[in-house]
């Protein structure tokens, strides 16, 4: 049973955005986020929306995939809208009044503004994980965190832990499945009873899984020490991700444009 497992949201397609260095993309996300918060009106939001649309098109990612994250936000968005649109005994004129609660024109506009901002942030930042593999992200994160080593952040070790976690996700998933099947063969049922009973039913799965994970960690540690791992210092990389001129160019120009737009609009 060798079904390939794709982790997270990475969409394996060749595009200009995919080809950009992960660090450049992280920088762009930071600039984009800043710009979105700087924007003060709908005109500015519209500009940011155009930017996101252009990025999605350049990334050659299906629009439906890119917009998938919005569904999960439905509750948050409705809450934002309502919280802003409904006022308690406002002094100003309102559209509709029901007792002490009033639906208020400017409030609705505020609600829409803030909700739109959330949507833009989520879609914009998801472009990072859609176009960058987890390994590239981890490597980029390590490089970006490196200056923090001066204040004691173990950037190399954190990156190594993330890499190992990523490496073992498909393996652990396979193992969990095997354990579930084995306990099912012993008559265990996972779909009976209320929430407490169902939670307890997973003990025969979680315990062996964790025991195996600890054993795995021990053997892996022996393997890593045997292969001369002694922390993140002084390690070279087989496929180092280097910022090329084009990466810098895109990062600087697009970031500047975004921030300028944010300030202006």
């Amino acid at each position, binding site marked *: 049973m060798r079904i390939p497992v794709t982790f997270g949201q990475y969409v394996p397609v060749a595009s200009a955005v995919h080809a950009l260095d992960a660090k450049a993309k992280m920088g762009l996300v930071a600039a984009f986020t800043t710009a979105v918060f700087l924007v003060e009106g709908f005109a500015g939001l519209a500009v940011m929306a155009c930017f996101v649309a252009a990025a999605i098109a350049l990334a050659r990612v299906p629009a439906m995939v890119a917009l998938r994250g919005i569904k999960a936000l439905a509750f948050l968005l409705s809450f934002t809208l309502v919280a802003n649109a409904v006022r308690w005994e406002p002094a100003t004129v309102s559209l509709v009044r029901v007792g002490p609660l009033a639906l208020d024109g400017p409030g609705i506009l505020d609600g829409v503004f803030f909700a739109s901002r959330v949507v833009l942030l989520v879609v914009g930042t998801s472009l990072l994980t859609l176009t960058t593999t987890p390994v590239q992200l981890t490597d980029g994160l390590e490089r970006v965190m490196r200056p923090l080593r001066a204040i004691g952040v173990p950037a190399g070790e954190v990156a190594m832990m993330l890499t190992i976690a990523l490496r073992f996700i498909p393996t652990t998933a396979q193992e969990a499945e095997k354990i579930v*099947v084995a306990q099912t063969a012993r008559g265990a049922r996972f779909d009976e009873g209320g929430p407490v009973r169902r939670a307890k039913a997973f003990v025969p799965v979680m315990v062996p899984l964790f025991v195996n994970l600890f054993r795995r960690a021990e053997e892996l540690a022996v393997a890593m020490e045997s292969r001369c791992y002694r922390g993140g210092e002084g390690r070279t990389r087989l496929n180092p991700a280097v910022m090329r001129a084009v990466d810098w160019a895109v990062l600087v120009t697009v970031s500047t444009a975004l921030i300028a737009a944010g300030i202006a609009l």
Partner: protein
Amino acid sequence: MALVAANLCYTYAAGTAYEVPALLGVDVHLECGDLLVIAGTTGSGKSTLLRLLAGLLQPSSGTVGLDGSSASDRRSRGRAAMVFQNPESQFFAESLLADVAFGPRNLGAQEPARLAAEALAAVGLDPDTFGDRSPFTLSGGEARRAAIAGALAMRAPYLLLDEPTAGLDGRGRRDVLLAIGRERDRAGVAVVTHDPEEFLPSATRVLALRAGETAFAGSVDELLANPSPYLEAGLRLPEVVMAQLFARDRGLPMGAIEFEPEAAAVRLSHARGARS
């Protein structure tokens, strides 16, 4: 009273781009007292077949019947006990007795603890000494036997084991073989293995698979009379048996083929004497 499978077919991820046909029409017949050895190389479909027999998978086509009812029927629940590869990685309880009693308890047995104690005794682990121990403190061979006891405690009329001796040393393998042999008194046993050598001497029937199809099905005597289909499926016979087969091919008048080296030596030296 038998476990009967007719024309079993199974395709993984059917209908998707990752479709993989694993079984292409296999028959099985298992009764109390049988030891069926299902042999095949990696990818031959043997583990898939076992899961189908246990009712854990639904066949793409064909039927699996347990004493008249379908294997996936409610009535069949607990009638086929299965032991997976490396079953000791499924321990979860604080005491061995509690872990082994898990199966019978789930099936609503009257006295799960008693069944668990009997099962532990059946695999050679004294319940008084081992019952209270944590399953995580057992040695490799002990753990394997304890995990098998977990299936035995279910008292199912059919026992299905996937590679029960893999990864054990000589003593561990012998202990497991003994435990399996004892179960034949009250159950039909099917063993899946990529290395059938140690099971052949006591097997009642051999089913060799090759790329999802039956390469050979018959008794051990039939296998030894014509070993080609079995060998062509990529499987090995014990070296002692192969030596006698080579001698027979050369023209030495071999009688029955022996599995035990001493008995084989007697046959070979007699055949050598008879030739001249």
